[in-house]
């Protein structure tokens, strides 16, 4: 067995073949498919959480300063805004991860034009 290659060569060879079989980039990280329900829960959770936290922060301000009830009111308002920001962020990352298929049939809209 004089011409036997050292195992490192075999290993890197194997690694190369595995990478090629996986699609080149060596990433084995295909994210599992997300069900629409979990996505919906995600959007709702992001929005609701921001509203609740905004309200709580406003309530905290009211407790510290004599601004009641304006802290809670403004906090809720800002919370709604932050919720929208959260949802937009989630939607943006989702759309980046799942680009729309350009060959997909377009959905007809029901506007009369």
């Amino acid at each position, binding site marked *: 067995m004089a011409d036997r290659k050292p195992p490192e060569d075999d290993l890197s060879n194997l690694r190369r073949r595995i990478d090629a079989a996986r699609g080149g980039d060596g990433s084995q990280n295909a994210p*599992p498919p997300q069900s629409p329900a979990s996505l919906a829960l995600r959007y709702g*959770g992001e929005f609701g*959480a*921001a509203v609740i936290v905004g309200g709580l922060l406003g309530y905290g301000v009211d407790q510290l300063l004599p601004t009641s009830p304006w802290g809670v009111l403004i906090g809720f308002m800002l919370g709604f805004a*932050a*919720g929208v920001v*959260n949802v937009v962020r989630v939607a943006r990352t989702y759309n980046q991860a799942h680009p729309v298929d350009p060959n997909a049939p377009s959905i007809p809209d029901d506007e009369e034009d």
Partner: protein
Amino acid sequence: MADDPIEQFHIESIVPIDIAGLDASFTNASLAMVGGVAVAALFFNWAMKPAALIPSRAQVVAEQTYGFVHGMVKDTTGDEGVKKFFPFVFTLFLFIFMSNMLGMFPGFFGVHHIFTPTSQIVVTAMLALLVFFTVIIVGLFKNGFKFFKIFAPSGVPLLIMPLIVLIEIISFFSRPLSHSVRLWANILAGHILLKVFASFVPMLFAAGGAFALLSVLPLAMTVALYGLEFLVAFLQAYVFALLTCIYLNDALHPGH
């Protein structure tokens, strides 16, 4: 009540411990958590013991799990994140995954069910807060005051900056809430749904006649839901770990 769908979430004390008036008993929830950690640790030790060049099946599972989380951390936070946070994220992932999975099993050996720790918001909130404070502390230590850039996105006119900063702060503080609620709500809702559908089976069967025949339908639904719950158990652990990575990335690279 055997058919109370909430009954499975009752905390029962196993070893009562009382520290200065605080109830710190070892409960069925603690037991399930210790069990999850033990199963994960024992499995990885056993599977990786041979550390063979040509792996056994168990070793493949262990290595793939490692590679899966490693790839996820690397994709989201880069090489620096892998160096700093990989053990943390891997531990979180395994803990949540094992807790979810153990909770999928009905009871045996006289234990009438296995508790699911992730169905308690205390547990998930603690995990989410752990991530939250890790982000703040690491972010402040690594970036100093530049960490606060995460509250001030670039390219915003100075006039509306105070408003944006307030909104960003609320958005930042809402993270641990949505982070923990997502895992908790998914697991809780899934387990309640399973129990509700399963309880229809004996109810219909006891009604007799044509209803007894109909009891096959909720049984089939329960089986299908069980399959779905296994997917959810994995998916929620994955989502929790992925969000952890995204948040940790903010600590390393503040400013969007």
